[in-house]
Structures are given as C-alpha cells and as structure tokens.
C-alpha cells in the first residue's frame, strides 16, 4: 500500500457526499432544506451556520491528516524530520484547546438565541390559529377548536397565519413533524406540547410521525395543504356542510389500533382534546375510559366508512378505507 493516497480518497468521498447533499438541497425532495415558513427558515439558517462552522474544523483537519500521513510515512527515501521524543508543546496545545472553544462559543450563541425564539409565535403581527393534534394508533386526529371541525390524517391551514399546534396522544409517544414548515415535537399521552408553524405561501407539504409507535407507525403520514385564507374558509364551510359529525363513539372507534383513511368531520364532541389529555394527566383521578364503550360499539365501523369528502385526494397507496378492527393491539390487519 503506498502511503498517502488513500486518506485523500476518503476525504474526496466525504467532500463529494457533502457536496451532493448541498447541490441536491435545491431539489424539492430535500424537505428539510426547503423551508416554506419562518420556523423552518430559522432552523435552515441554523443548519447552514453549523455546517459552515463545522467545515472550518473538518476540512483543515482532514487536509492536515492527509498531509501528515503522507509526509511522515516510513519509506526508505523519506527525508522528513523524525523526532521520536517531541511530545509536548504548550503553544500548540493552547491553540487546539481554544479552536473548539471558540467554535462552540459562536455556535452556542446562535443555539441559545433560537431555542428561546422558537418557543414563541414566529409572526407576532397575526393572531395564531389553534389546531389540536392527537396521535392515535396509527393515525393523526386534528381538531380545529375555533372552527369546530375535525380531520384524520389530513391537515389544511391558511397560509401566512401562524398556527399553534397543541399536541397530545392517546397511544404510545409519537412526534409531530412537518419538515418543510419546521421541526418536530413529541406527542405524549396526558400532556400537551406546543408547536408554532406557519406556511408562508399556499402549497402542499408532507407531514409524518417521527417517533416509533409500533406496527402501523410507517403509515402515519399525512398531507398538509396550505391555502389562502379565503380558500381555507371555503373548505371549512364545505366540511361543515357535507361531512358527518364526530360522535363520542366515532372517537372510540378511531382510538382503536388500526390504519385510517383521510376523514373529515363537520364537528367533534366539545372538549374532546381536553378530555383526552386529562384522562392521563398525572395525579388527577383516573377516568374510566373505554372498555365498556368498546364492546358496545364493536360494529360501529360501518358508520365510519362514510368518510369525508377529502378522501379521494390522497395519493398515498396506503390509503385504505377505515377499518377499526374489533381486536386488540396485537393483530391489526394491515391492508397491504
């Protein structure tokens, strides 16, 4: 093996990979690098700052590695200096204790600044709209308290308006993520987490669950459609006029493990989200949830199979009609 060739090859591979990421970043498949709202934009900027700061270390270090390995290879005619006992230099060591400290200090500043910023409404001029998100096995339930409508596996929002998502779960912990609009946050039973997102312009985005919840986890994907405020209001009106109301039993059916199609409901039981959250809040008296209801409505899925008007829109192959299996979490039938 001739000494110095291969680390450079490695280095090339690394750089090529980085470059391909950067270049491809323009492609629309790179959702994280295609921010479509202020939150994702902040995060995109941070990602870029951190990539640049890290490159300041990575590139010289790799170059230095290649140089040293080549320069000081042990071959008969290598005339490089050999100092077997040179093992200490205060000056050098001070330099490389301080390089990372400086980089970390800069990066730390941006990190802390944006950590606080992202807890707030990103668009202070506009009153945020509230949408409640519930992660179920294995579907997303969205309830719009201001509009009193509900959807499953589909989210429509007005562009240019910050949305405050209030997120919880009645299932194993999930994570609510719409990469083009911004980073994720966990959905946990008995707790509400908050996440502000805003789409600057109309468009369609992918949303998904990002924390493993079991068998149907991979299918917990949903479309997010941002429209103008007018179109959004129109859509709400349509939902109100043409889709069924969600009853308590409907929710109990939804809650059962299984996959679901896109569904829309013209209304939902008042305080449904709050009830879901308080059911598992710590220290509160436990509410008797479920098992009686379950057995009462075992045949309730017929009613469910009249899904909302949006059903046809979903291109996903995993779109099947709703089947809430009456059996337990063990054996949900994946209709594949």
């Amino acid at each position, binding site marked *: 093996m001739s000494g110095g060739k291969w680390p450079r090859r490695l280095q090339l591979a690394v750089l090529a990979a980085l470059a*391909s990421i950067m270049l491809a970043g323009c492609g629309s498949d790179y959702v994280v690098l295609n921010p479509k709202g202020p939150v994702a934009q902040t995060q995109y900027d941070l990602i870029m700052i951190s990539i640049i700061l890290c490159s300041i270390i990575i590139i010289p270090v790799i170059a230095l590695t290649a140089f040293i390995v080549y320069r000081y290879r042990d071959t008969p005619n290598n005339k490089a200096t050999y100092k077997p006992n040179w093992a200490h230099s205060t000056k050098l060591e001070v330099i490389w204790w301080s390089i990372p400290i400086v980089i970390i200090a800069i990066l730390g500043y941006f990190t802390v600044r944006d*950590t606080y910023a992202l807890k707030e409404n990103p668009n202070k001029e506009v009153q945020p709209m509230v949408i409640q998100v519930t992660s179920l096995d294995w579907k997303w339930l969205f309830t719009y308290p201001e509009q009193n409508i509900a959807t499953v596996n589909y989210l429509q929002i007005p562009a240019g308006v910050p949305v405050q998502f209030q997120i919880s779960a009645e299932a194993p912990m999930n994570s609510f993520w719409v990469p083009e609009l911004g980073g994720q946050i966990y959905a946990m039973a008995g707790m509400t987490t908050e996440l502000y997102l805003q789409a600057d312009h109309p468009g369609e985005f992918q949303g998904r669950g990002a924390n493993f919840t079991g068998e149907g986890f991979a299918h917990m994907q949903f479309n997010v459609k941002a429209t103008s405020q007018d179109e959004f209001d129109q859509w709400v009106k349509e939902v109100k006029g043409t889709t069924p109301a969600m009853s308590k039993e409907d929710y109990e059916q939804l809650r059962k493990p299984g996959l679901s199609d896109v569904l829309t409901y013209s209304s939902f039981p008042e305080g449904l989200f709050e009830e879901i959250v308080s059911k598992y809040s710590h220290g509160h008296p436990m509410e008797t949830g479920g098992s009686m209801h379950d057995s009462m409505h075992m045949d309730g899925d017929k009613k469910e199979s009249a899904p909302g008007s949006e059903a046809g829109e979903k291109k996903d192959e995993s779109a099947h009609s709703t089947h809430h299996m009456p059996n337990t979490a063990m054996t949900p039938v994946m209709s594949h």
Partner: protein
Amino acid sequence: MWESLKEFASWFFVTGDPLIYGAMVSIALTMVAIVFVLTKYKKWGWLWREWLTTVDHKRIGIMYLIASLLMLFRGGVDALLMRVQLAFPNLEFLHSDHYNAIFTTHGTIMILFMAMPMMFGLFNMVVPLQLGARDVAYPFLNAVSFWLFMFGAMLFNLSFVIGGSPDAGWLSYPPLSQNDFSPGPGQNFWIWGIQISGIGSLATGINFIVTILKMRAPGMKLMKMPMFSWSVLSSCIMIIFAFPILTVTIALLYLDRFAGAHFFTMDGGGNPMMYLNLIWMWGHPEVYIVVVPAFGIFSEVVATFAKKKLFGYTSMVIAVMGISILSFFTWAHHFFTMGTSANVIAFFAITTMLIAIPTGVKIFNWLFTMYRGKISFKQPMMWTIAFIPCFVVGGATGVMLAVAPADYQYHNSYFLIAHFHQVLIGGVVFGYLAGIYYWWPKLFGFKLDEKLGAWGFWLWNIGFYVCFMPQYALGFMGMTRRYYTYGWDLGWEPLNLVSTVGAFLMGAGFVFQVWQITYSIKHGERDTTGDPWNGRTLEWSIPSPAPFYNFAVVPQVKELDDFWRVKEEKANGTYKEEPVHLEPIHMPKNSGLPFIMSFCWFIAGFGFVWEWTWMAAIGMVGVALVMWARSFQYDTDYYVPVDEVRRTEASLGRVY
C-alpha cells in the same frame, strides 16, 4: 393432551416465518455438531477445565472476543435484512412486526452484546499486561462477569426462536414497551437479557477500577500509566455511575409489566417521560463508555506505529477524564423535542457541545503524534488513520445535532442514524478492530494476515461511506428512522438503494476478516520475540502468547512507555541489568462456581421472562446457594513454584 401440547408449543416457539425455521434448524444443527465434536475428540473435560472454569483474564478476554464476534455476525445479519427491506419502496420482504423486531435486536445486540463484550475482551486481554500485573484484582469476580454476560446474551438471543423477539426499539420506550402495546414475553427477554449481563458489566467496572488503582507495577505512577489504561479507568468510572441507573430503570419497567406497577404507564399516575430521562442517564454515558477505550487504543497504536511518544499525554488524560464527567450532563439532548423549557434545552445543548472540546483536542494530539514520526501502515494503524476523518465528520454532525432548534429537524431522522453509526462504527468498531489487530499476537502468538486484512479494511471503509453518507441526505429528505417501508412518491429510493449496497460491502469486509482469522491460524506470521510491532508498553516485554502468570518477574517502572526506555537504553548501552530473582507466584485457582451461578441466573431470568414464578424462584435459590458456597470456600489460591516458572519461561525462550 396432544392438542394442548401443540397449543403450548405454538405459543412457546416462534412460528410462521421461514427465516425463523431456518434459524431454528441451523441452531439445532450447530448444537449437535458441537456436542458431536466435543464427544468424539473427548474434549468435554478440556472445555470445562481450561475454559468454563478459568479465572485467567487472558482466556476470559478471548471468550469475550469470540462471543462478541458471534454477536457482531448476528447484529450484522439483522442490519442486512433491514437494508434489504429498505432497498426499494414498498418491498414485502419483511413485515412490519418482523422489521420492528429486527431493528430492536440489531440495536440492542450491537451496543450491549457486541460493543460491550468486545470492549471487556480488550480490557481483559490488555490491562493487566499493560500494568505489569499477574491478573485483575478479583479474578473470580471477573469470571462471574463474563458468564453473566454470556448467559444474559444467550437469554436475549433465545427470544428469536422461543417466545418472540422484543420489538419496541433498542431502548424500549414505554408506553410502547408496556403490556398494553407489547404483550408477550419478547419485551421481558429484552429486560432480563440486559439485566443479567448488566450486573456482570457493573462488576467488571468495579474490578478494573481496583485493578488500575491498586495493581500497577511498582514505579508506575498514575501519570506514567499507558493511555489505554487511563481510558479504561475513565470508562469504568462511567460504568459504576451509569449501570445502576440502568438496573433500576429496567427493573421498574419489569415491575410495570409483571406486577402491574405504575412507574411508566399512561394511567395510574405513571410517567413514561421519566423512563426517557432515566434510560438516557445511563444511555448517554453508555456510548462514551464504549468509545473512550477506543480512544485509548488509538493512542497506543498511533504512538507505536509513528514510532514516537504520544503527543500531549497530560492533555489526553485531562480530556479522557473530563469526558467521563461531562457525559453525565448531556442526557436530555436525546429528547430536545419533548417540549421542555427553553432553559433546560439551552443547558443541555451547551453541555453537549462542550464534549466536542476534549474530543477535538484528542484528534489534534493524535495528528501531532504522527507529525515528525515515521509512520508504518500496518493494520492497526490503517484502522486508526481511517478513524480520524470518519470521527471528525461524525463528531461534527454530533455538534450539529446539539444545536437544539436544528435538532427538531434532525431528531429521529436518518441524519441521526447516520451520525451515530458514524461515531459508533468509525469510532468504536474501528477502534476495537485496531485494538484486536494490535494485541492479537500477544494473545495468540501470531499476526493476522495483512493481505486479507487489507481486503477487509477497504471493504469496510468504502462500504461505510457508501452506506451512511446517503443516510445523512435521507435525513434531509425527511426520512424517519424505524420506517419498515416507504412510498415511491418521496424520492427516497435511489439513496436507499445505494445505502443497501454499502451495507453489503461492509458485510463482505466482515467475511474477509473471518477468512483472515481462519487463514492466519495456520499461515499467520509467528511472533517469536513477544514484541512484533516494536511496542512501547509493558505487555510487549513478555513472550507471546503470555504465560498464565504474565510476568515471571514483576517489572520496575521508571517512565511512561517504560519498555521503550528499556529498549533504548539497551541499544545505547546505558541499561543496567538488575539481578533477577524468581519467586513463587501467587495465583487464583480455577472455579466452576461462576459458570454455575450464571446458569442459575439464566434459569431465573427464563422464569421471569415467562412470568413463571416457580422457575424464577428455583433460579434465585440456586444463585443464593452458589454465593453461600463461595463464601465458605477458603482454599481459593495457590503458589506457582519457582521451578515451574523457570521451566515455563525456558520453553518460551527466556532463561532466568
């Protein structure tokens, strides 16, 4: 009767998948083959006397090594199965539940049953030799540790054919890992496999701390101790602080599942998020536990093959010990996305970034060890040089992940997957491989073949980049970890296919390494000097393979890299030969009790897994009886007479 028996069998054994039937058949065949060979060649007694009852740290190290390579094979097959499933969209190679089981076992095995034993193997093979000691502080306990690990690992792997594998992720977050969502014994196998081997790990931690603090050769001040031993000390300190937390956490999870407790349940006031905190208070130090010894190995290898003193030894010691403290203050970065207050997030983001400082310093020190050296590219050094760029990139993406607001975009995505594989493969696996190649001649008396090793090296390295660089990009494309399938509409397929190809290249690299080992047993270059690499530390001053008592005469240490000093002084004629005076050597006796006790733990664990209280009770009574018996054993050691030492040394070519 027959019906109920059949019913029991279909519940007890995992059924319904050709892969599993295949595994059952091959396990059965292997067992039969082993029994046959042992019986035919009358090796049962040999196996018992020489291996199952041994308390010799070198043999225990070898057994750890073999076990960890087997586990690397299994974890690697798991990885390849996953990559096949993800090679194309909508493949139906594995079903969701099977895929979930495989990524769970892959993660658990690779960290707990591959990296940990390989690390303990290296501890055992090297530390006492490097310190100039005859054995570890507690040889009996050392054997207990090994057998607890072994039976824990066996219990865990049993789940593949009996009862069903765990499938709630390698850290088994509740509520998913609770009875409601993960009924059946699979999750219990996870708990008890880890619990039993974890007790062993804890004992190893104690054992090596005492060994390092108390058993160093005379003259070896702490600041004259080789870097690898320092890194082991750091790792062991982390073990004793982190592992009790693991023990408690998974014991509580078991109480939830078995006794209906409400620690981490959704109802009854339980708090699943407390589990996340607890498990990562162990889990984060755990990754440093495995990576810090790799840093130690690199330090030894770099100095040896650059033929130069390790640069910035004091800095290195500070850095390694600093990491062991810092590692306990970063755990919350694994769940920045939990929605905690900005203060908490900012604190943990900063502490996480701080880790980069000592780590970065080490990189520079290794580089400047090579600077003005004379680098020869033997296998251990190849892996070390490959490690540097790999770890620099992996460390940098780690810093990127520590940027909390940006982490909301990376969390649970393939960016994260690529990052931790880059530090764990580029750091831990490369490091341990470097260590194995480096110390192999000391343990076995021959070198591993360079040519086959080069094939392994290049396949691993190219495969690594082909496999994991695309995964960073997939993270930016929003691909979430633990998806068993994905659609055509996302644009993920080309990079996933590339990644799968890379995984198979690494697999091929492993095949070459196995071939290398089997080939070298016969044809490997024999090490007759005991010092095949022109080494610097004490382990190279004794013959290879080392005699069972290690050092015929305990060395007197004057400097760091003391063996190098001796060689230099001998070369320039200033070495003062001191009169050698052989003495009887005090050694521990072999004992079957560690094996028997661990087997009792296995029985108990099996009972706990199936919630058969009677069986668990039998096992625990067995454990208690063995401990009782051990307490009454006083005749536990003996002296090797001077004659025997002289004879052994003479047969190894050293005359006293």
